[in-house]
């Protein structure tokens, strides 16, 4: 069942702020095995011109994907969440995420396409900090696979 095209362009309310903690960044860097001290050592980060430790480039996905669930699970949109797989992911950074950031995400449905019975949904998440400064834009493409034939 094709999704309703009238949802294209719909923007969802900004999420409550997510406060980025140093220890959460450390945990993420350790999970991906990345020993770059800029993720764990504030002095090393400052030596590179950052005010505090920064997060690895893909860290922010945890925050934007949680925001995208507003869209994926919008009962009016009617996406079959159990059939959703991640197709494409892209980030465009104004600056890295860093410890102390309080980030809000505003999600917008960019496009809805039907390809070979699959629903292909593009969601843009705009991430801003507490002062309203743009941090990163996440482009997430999700594919809801067609239901199997009976």
């Amino acid at each position, binding site marked *: 069942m094709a999704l309703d095209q009238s949802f294209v362009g719909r923007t969802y309310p900004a999420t409550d702020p997510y406060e980025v903690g140093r220890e959460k960044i450390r945990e993420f860097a*350790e999970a*991906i*095995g990345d020993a*770059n001290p800029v993720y764990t050592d504030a002095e090393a980060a400052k030596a590179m*011109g950052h005010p505090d430790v920064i997060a690895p*480039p893909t860290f922010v996905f945890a925050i934007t994907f949680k925001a995208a669930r507003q869209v994926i699970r919008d009962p009016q949109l009617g996406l079959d969440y159990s059939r959703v797989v991640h197709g494409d992911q892209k980030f465009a950074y104004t600056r890295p995420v860093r410890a102390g950031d309080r980030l809000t995400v505003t999600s917008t449905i960019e496009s809805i396409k039907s390809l070979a019975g699959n629903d292909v949904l593009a969601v843009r998440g705009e991430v801003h900090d507490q002062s309203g400064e743009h941090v990163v834009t996440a482009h997430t493409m999700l594919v809801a696979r067609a239901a199997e034939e009976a």
Partner: protein
Amino acid sequence: MAAKISYADVETGAELPAQSFPVTRATLVEYAGASGDFNPIHWNEKFAKEVGLPDVIAHGMFTMAEAIRVVTDWVGDPAAVVEYGVRFTKPVVVPNDDEGAVIEVSAKVAAKLDDEARTVRVDLVAKSAGQKVLGMSRAVVKLA
């Protein structure tokens, strides 16, 4: 911003040092906790097989996170990454043994984009078990 690599010193076609990243079931559990993605296809073999997968698979975002390390290790400051995008083409299958799987990443400078902004496009290739696992994997990087 403190990129170690100077734009003037980089030529189109230059290869970045390739790296291999091991991934075991334990890695996936750790990544699930760190990222908050607890989808059982990444830790529960029974569930993964029920939904038609060959075995437990790595999070696509884990593979994406490992691949960009080839760029961030090369350039020094991860803040030099201006854009980064991938397509998830094949899953990384992670067997339940001590070996797990290996993600092999190579990358090269595909184009010098802007002399003034000192940006280059780096194209990445990520493979596991001989299969390409990321497609259209590209980063725009601002050099010194």
